[in-house]
């Protein structure tokens, strides 16, 4: 009904696909880590859609970074807990 731009999911998949060559040339274990990065970015597709950036990949990168930082916060917390036990 008058929609011209692809859905955010479609845009995401196209961006992911555009890195297929890069991914192919990576070691298998690195490929799995890369896949996790992309999967992490998928948590924030709604925000990326709302952001309406002309270059959505920049938003996806920020989402990946966001998830990485959350993991850092979690790990930091666990370290503190473990230090506290000793």
């Amino acid at each position, binding site marked *: 009904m*008058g929609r*011209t731009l692809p859905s955010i999911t479609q*845009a995401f998949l196209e961006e992911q696909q555009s890195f297929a060559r890069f991914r192919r040339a990576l070691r298998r274990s690195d490929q799995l880590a890369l896949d996790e990065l992309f999967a992490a970015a998928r948590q924030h597709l709604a925000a990326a859609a709302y952001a309406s950036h*002309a*270059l*959505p990949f920049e938003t996806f990168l920020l989402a990946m970074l966001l998830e990485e930082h959350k993991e850092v916060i979690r790990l930091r917390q666990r370290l503190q807990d473990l230090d506290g036990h000793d």
Partner: protein
Amino acid sequence: MQTLPDLHAGKLYLALVSRPLRRRIANAAIAHLALRGAVRVLDGGNHFDAHGIARALRLKTYRLTATLEHIQVSRAFTCYQVITLLSETPLTATPTLALDLLTTFYDQSVPRPERRRLLEICLQELMRLCQRAVVLVTALPGQDDPLLERLEVTADQTLRFELEEPQAPLRLF
């Protein structure tokens, strides 16, 4: 990879672009013109690839937002809307791209004589606009298509963009 020749006002240009090249050619033309100033786009096929255009622009300028604002786009979803959009376009020197002009004219629910009549009005409007501005129309190449033939006859110069290599898939063995 063919490139667009220099385009001038006063002539109506028609680009016949085969389907696999459609996006690339349209994006290249729009980006090329947007980098040089204002450009008007009439999207008749609902294929306006905003993201692709943004990516193409980003390679050439860091002023992406401002350059995107050079592009004025309107979408036509029926052939009546194509006429309305063309007739509402003011006569200025701003280059005008009418992409996939004929797509809405293949709508079977509009009687054929009516579609032909509307196409004539469409062509008149395009001739009006190209007196002051560069006007480029794109369409899919085809055979036995009276509407396309009418468009080809009216255009002053027809450019063809087709794939150079054949489509046979590569095999390793």
